[in-house]
């Protein structure tokens, strides 16, 4: 919690537009010059808030997936949601839609992709099994990936292709208050059931039979978790583009602190994810004149931290 607050403060204080701490304090207390107000209220703070939101959402989705699929290698992308949302958004860029419509296309396509995966897996023999589900996710995700490649091929190489490339690497550069306002309800709607049902979801990690013996219908609960995680991930990807690693790595970081119990893991993963994302995004907008795509930074900063954490405290994550 303290870490998150510190990260938020750093995020608010640092940026390419020179603002002293006093100027920031003035603006936050409702005063300050017009220019400082524009920079802080319209640009920097929405972005810091968006980073925290995306970090928390992806981490929560990742933690939930790793628990219900009983597999530490799972990330929120496993059912093809990122590839699907990416396909929707780049299609929007190709068609020259307005920015808000591009985000909506990404959001809708992400949800649509997972819905397709679910329908497909339920209609197959042995439907509802985790393995069938994941294989369907991989297949549909590969299709969406092929769709992205096709869009890249068709795009105007001077104007649309760079936009698509930047978008697929993930960035919060263009974030505005309305973008945050649009994504916030979807993310909260996805988070709320996970938080409310965190005990029951934790029991799924023991296996379907144990869960049933404790009176929990595993299949239905898993569906709910998938729906929530998809909602959050789609909203995040629509707002910030495709940002890898967070959903896989942060839950492991959190697990090193809390151990595998989902009811403890979830809040810690959310806070860690939010704080980490804010710091990564602060780096993205300050270490160079040009924006460094988030997808690159999460891996470059995240992978070493992750390995270091693994070497330090390998005791509690493989219970």
């Amino acid at each position: 919690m303290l870490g998150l607050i510190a990260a938020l403060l750093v995020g608010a204080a640092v940026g390419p537009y020179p603002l002293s701490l006093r100027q920031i304090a003035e603006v936050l207390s409702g005063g300050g010059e017009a220019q400082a107000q524009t920079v802080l209220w319209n640009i920097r703070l929405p972005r810091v808030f968006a980073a925290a939101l995306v970090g928390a959402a992806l981490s929560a989705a990742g933690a939930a997936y790793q628990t219900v699929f009983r597999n530490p290698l799972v990330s929120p992308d496993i059912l093809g949601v990122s590839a699907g949302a990416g396909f929707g958004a780049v299609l929007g860029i190709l068609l020259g839609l307005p920015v808000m419509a591009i985000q909506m296309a990404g959001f809708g396509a992400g949800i649509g992709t997972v819905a397709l995966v679910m329908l497909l897996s339920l209609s197959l023999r042995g439907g509802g099994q985790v393995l069938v589900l994941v294989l369907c996710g991989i297949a549909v995700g590969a299709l969406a990936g092929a769709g992205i490649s096709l869009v890249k091929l068709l795009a105007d190489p001077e104007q649309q292709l760079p936009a698509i490339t930047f978008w697929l690497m993930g960035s919060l550069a263009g974030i505005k208050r309305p973008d945050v306002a649009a994504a916030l309800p979807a993310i909260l709607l996805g988070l709320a059931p996970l938080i409310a049902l965190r005990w029951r979801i934790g029991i799924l990690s023991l296996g379907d039979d144990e869960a049933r013996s404790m009176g929990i219908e595993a299949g239905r609960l898993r569906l709910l978790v998938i729906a929530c995680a998809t909602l959050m991930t789609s909203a995040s990807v629509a707002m910030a583009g495709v940002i890898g690693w967070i959903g896989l790595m942060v839950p492991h970081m959190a697990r090193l602190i809390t151990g595998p119990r989902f009811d403890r893991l979830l809040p810690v993963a959310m806070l860690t994810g939010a704080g980490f994302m804010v710091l990564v995004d602060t780096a993205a907008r300050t270490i160079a004149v040009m924006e460094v795509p988030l997808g690159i930074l999460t891996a470059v900063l995240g992978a070493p931290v992750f390995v270091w954490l693994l070497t330090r405290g390998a005791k509690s994550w493989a219970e």
Partner: protein
Amino acid sequence: MRHFPSHALKGAILAALTAFPAFAFDGQTITDATGREVLVPANPARVFAAGPPASTLLYTLKPEAMVGWVRAPKKGDLPFLLPATAELPELGRLTGKGDTLNLEGLLASEPDLIVDYGTVNDTYKDLAARVQEQAGVPYVLIDGSFAALPQSIRDMGKVLAVPERAETLAAYAEAALAENDALLAEIPEDQRPTVYLARGPEGLETAGKGSINAEIIERVGGRNVAEVESKGLANVSPEQVQGWAPEVIITIDRDFAANVGSMPEWQGVPAVKNGRVYLAPSAPFGFIDTPPSVNRLIGLKWLAHKLYPDHAKGDLKADVAAFYGLFYGVKPDEAAITALLGG
């Protein structure tokens, strides 16, 4: 192993087919920008342009020899193009790995010459040699840098066997560059505005100093605020633009130009505050880059009028009309030019 004989067979057939045309008629030997000696037909009649810059240059020099467009002109471009070229097919581009055209498709259009105009480096040199060898069509690469423009027009004119036409256009290019230099001599460095090039609907893609996409801004003396490391395009944040506080914004995106006044994160930027956001015209070819070819010559004049309204000489509309007449072979009326320049 099954594939091996079939490859060898294909290669043999291709070699047999392609060895032929290069020696089938008289021609001239050209040394192109890569130092390769290329035997080209004496009067090329079916010329394929490998990319958009070459396509534009070919159009201005010898439109009747075009076998197609790299990208078909859009509807808004048609009033500014010769009607005969509007119907030409879209053939795609030939630029190494990013090809949207295969060699068989290229050969189906029966070109007697391939021209490319742009960056000269080992990759493109190698590509030119490989395509020429594989397709059996002479491939000439001409230097696409801005400074070399008049000479490149003459070189291309020689290759296409239209030296008089090339001389006229090259003289125009020399005059335009000289006029630009004379204008800059009057304006001290510190009176030249800082400029941000905005691309994309959000205006957050830009091109830094030294990139081919923004080259023209420095050529007109604008001080490009984006000192980014990359040679190509870069993404920046609105906060960064606020920090740069550019006095002028040049954009090639219609949506951005229309909306920037109401986008909260752009408020307070001097260019926005003072109404100095300018949309570069784009029909039939862009004024700033898209593609980086001879079309930038009129961009020079346009940009001079936008950056130095008090110093720039001449009537911009008359200049545009003259340029379109000379280079594109069309005579847009007053209303069309006004619409092109955004009123």
